[in-house]
């Protein structure tokens, strides 16, 4: 049947983008559980949590490929297609950083987190989860903006982005505090190296979350 309108319209990438952001969020929660499990002495489910993270990462990867594969040449979106791809890459990088942190942790699976730095470490973990939760919220709100082009809605998204920036800043502070604490309390060079690198990798999760915010800000620019 000849339906010119329908053959021009293709499915919106924003729904999939939201789906991807939700996966990132769920993945970060699984990461948080894995970290808590690792720190506790009686943890036997660390590998399960880690597998869960890997599963989320795979699912998110599929969504990413689906978005990229279904935007043919000549597609017209409310934003530049490649801007969207850059954004998606950054949103996906959050997941990679989560996975990287767990991988790094597993390299010294036999050694638990020293009690002296535990508090600082969990403060850091919590502070990198926050911007990720905000990230999923941002995608949803931005989707609404691209539908209704309301100035009020645009301000709302900008506010979320600035919140994310603040959260990344807090996470940086905590990463700094943690590293300081590691040097102050640990004497074993191997443990120091492992913990410092762990702190940096976890910290980078928030960096990528902030980057998605910045990318989104660019997409909102009039």
């Amino acid at each position, binding site marked *: *049947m000849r339906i010119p309108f329908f053959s021009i319209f293709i499915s919106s990438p924003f729904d999939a983008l939201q789906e991807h952001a939700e996966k990132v969020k769920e993945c970060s929660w699984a990461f948080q559980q894995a970290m808590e499990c690792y720190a506790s002495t009686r943890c036997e489910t660390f590998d399960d949590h880690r597998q869960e993270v890997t599963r989320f990462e795979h699912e998110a990867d599929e969504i990413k490929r689906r978005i990229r594969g279904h935007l043919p040449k000549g*597609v017209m979106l*409310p*934003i530049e297609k490649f801007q969207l791809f850059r954004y998606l890459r950054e949103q996906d990088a959050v997941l990679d950083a989560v996975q990287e942190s767990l991988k790094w942790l597993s390299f010294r699976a036999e050694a638990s987190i020293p009690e002296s730095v535990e508090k600082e470490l969990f403060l850091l973990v919590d502070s990198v989860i926050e911007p990720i939760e905000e990230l999923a919220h941002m995608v949803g709100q931005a989707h609404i903006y691209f539908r209704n082009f*309301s100035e009020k809605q645009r301000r709302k998204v900008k506010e979320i982005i600035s919140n994310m920036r603040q959260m990344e800043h807090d996470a940086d502070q905590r990463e700094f505090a943690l590293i300081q604490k590691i040097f102050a309390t640990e004497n074993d060079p191997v443990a120091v190296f492992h913990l410092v690198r762990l702190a940096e990798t976890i910290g980078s999760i928030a960096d990528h979350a902030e980057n998605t915010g910045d990318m989104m800000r660019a997409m909102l620019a009039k």
Partner: protein
Amino acid sequence: MPTEVIVLIVGFLVGFYMAWNIGANDVANSMASAVGAKAITLRQAILIAGILNIVGAAFIGSHVTDTIRKGIVSTDVLSDPHIALLGALSALLSASLWVSFATWRSLPVSTTHSIVGSMVGFGVAMGGFSVIHWGVLGAVVLSWVISPVFSLVIGFLMFKLIIWIVLSSSDPFGAALKKSPWFIGTAVFIIAMSFLFKTPLGKSLSLSTPVAGLISLMIASMIGYLGKWAINYKLDAEKKLRLGAEAIFRRIQIGTSCYVALAQGANDVANAIGPLAVIYFLVKEGTLGATVPVPFFLLFLGGVGIAVGIAMGGRRVIQTVGSRITTLSNTRGFSVDFSAATTVLVASKLGLPVSTTHSAVGGVMGVGLARGFEAVNFGIIFQIMLYWVLTVPVAALTCIGIFKFLLWVT
């Protein structure tokens, strides 16, 4: 049975089939954006489009038709009634074949251009290339570019305007309601002008441009304010909150898509009924002039054919309406309808044989360029345009083939 009677019967069948095709294909042009934007349900759309197409065809449709659509071929080729009879039939046949093919392949081609192309084929078969009025053919070629581009520009500007004065304001609903007389008024102005200029009913009033403009302006401002009242009538607070400005445009859009349906019935019925009228007239009178009268029952038959096509084609539209058009909200739908209707009016005033289909596609592109859609695939446009261009030569060649065959048979 004499050949004339057979030709007349076949002509009736093919003419009705052509009308059916117009209905089956063009229900999308008038109603797709309204259904997609959930201004009306599909069932309502089919009913409204069916009724308005019959009304448009029977009461506004041309009661006099050019013997050769848009005068593309010199009427000299019609001096022999027998040849003219076969020519009209082959034109009708080849145009319906092409439109059927396009229907099958889901390609938006113009029914007007199919008939024009067929006429060219008949002309060439009879009198060679010298009988073709190249200026008219040039206008057809020009319309491939002009109607989508013009519609694109209007669609783009209209949607940008909506963003600027409605969507980005602090209270989009309030702004939309406050400005609604302007939006309705402008649309009504275009509609009134096109009725006064484009339709035979309006032409019979023979108003001068300033007078027609003044009348349209008065009607537009009146309906604009009445429309504002009608929009606000029984609009519940829940919808207001959930849809915002879209709620306003949802109601405006019902009007604009009705107009497109009505105009379509009025304008496109001639594509199916024009050649049939020629056959009918020839069988009855035996001779032909530059124009022939079209009896009311033929127009009505054409309208019914279109309505039946809408009713049957609509079913398949239901299957296709899915996730694809969720991004088409009412503000976008209004912009598309508005740009298509405006293009059809202005271009016809300039004497260009434009197609509603081309204009509607252009309108979608315009809103897309204004960043109005979450995802539209412009890549497909080139494919669509290829078939616009192919329409004339393919219809012409098919017509030559059918005509030669009929000559050989009779």
